[in-house]
């Protein structure tokens, strides 16, 4: 993976990432219904899961290469099946 630049993701980036991780990595499925606010930990955990799948640096951060992969055209079937 190219050396990812650590950036401070925009709000739009974060929204897109949450939508991506929810659709392809079941982000909200693993969060108890009583707590609908997505915790930083579960977001970080899902980012790590996605980075591991795509062979990126597993940082748990929304760095440039992670966002770049998230924006690639792709299949709509989730990458993991919960």
């Amino acid at each position, binding site marked *: 993976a190219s050396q990812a630049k650590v950036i401070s993701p925009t709000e739009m980036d974060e929204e897109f990432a949450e939508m991506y991780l929810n659709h*392809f990595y079941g982000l909200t499925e693993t969060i108890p219904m009583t707590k609908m606010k997505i915790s930083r930990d579960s977001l970080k955990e899902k980012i790590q899961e996605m980075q591991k*799948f*795509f*062979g990126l640096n597993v940082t748990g951060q929304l760095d440039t290469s992670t966002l770049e*992969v998230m924006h*690639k*055209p*792709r*299949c*709509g*079937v*989730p*990458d993991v*099946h919960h």
Partner: protein
Amino acid sequence: YSTFQGRPVWKKHEITYRINNYTPDMKKEDVDYAIQKAFQVWSDVTPLKFRRVHAGEADIMISFANGAHGDFNPFDGKDGILAHAYEPGPGIGGDAHFDEAETWSKNQQGRNLFLVAVHELGHSLGLGHSNDRKAIMYPNYGYLDPNTFHLSSDDIRGIQSLYGGPEKHQPMPNPDRPKPAVCDPNLSFDAVTTLGDKIIFFKDGVFWWKFPETSKTGISSISSLWPTLPSGIQAAYEIEARKQVFLFKDDKYWLLSNLRLQPNYPKSIYSLGFPKYVKKIDGAVFNPLLYKTYFFVNSWYWRYDERNQRMDPGYPRQITKNFPGIGPKIDAVFYFKRNYYFFQGSTQLQYDVMLHRVTKRLRSSNWFGC
């Protein structure tokens, strides 16, 4: 590779599919062909057979849709999600949906429908995503070249873990037409050429290959090596020194180099200098002594200068007048050790290029020791 939770699979080997609608981006026949080829990729490596139906419910329903389209997975407009498919099962199970907001194509412009279809049909058969970038089941698009595409070993391991390998007999590209036996006395060939140290004989969707000096032969389906190449190749010739084999069908031709289909093909035969009334090529042969290629069309032939890359003036000429004993029409021809071998139906004529005459009359299948 991965499979869906619970490893859903089809409990039968003959699976039906139906193309519900079409994208305006491509000709209908190009969509039909891309989908047929995509199914063939999976049938070549499993015991599965796919049969197209035109009405009623099929196991795998294929459709193009925009945005929300009746399942709980709306499409998202251009780019982003290109398509999705459902694991084997009744109803929506197995169905494959393609996002109409994409620009679909049969080449590398826009989104290649064949490649995306192979991926989605992998899901329709029970495969999940693979994190192997060389695999067709890798979730992101754009890493594979449709011209050189073939299943990765990860893909093959995955699908064969669900269905096993193909049945013992050779793959039959078209179940409705059984494979012709090579020693059938009435067998004629569509095209013949040398290919490196082998001679290959094309017929419909298959080709036989043979080492000229040994009895070793084999058969393979065209689609298993070159999935995007059509069946029914009509002419072929090799320029051995350049490791190039040119294949012709109707008004198009492809280039194989080191057994790989080259990008930027097919090209139009008219770029070689044929007049528009020529619709297809019956046979073609390269003469390494002259560095010229002869193209045979009906009862006429043209001569192409491979060095100057243009047709020689003064053509076409009549085959019967300049190749005594040959014609008026031929099916195929290839060059081997200072002889042309012309195929006319079930007959083969050995023609000495130095003596300019037929020196032997053989059966077309003679190379196979029949």
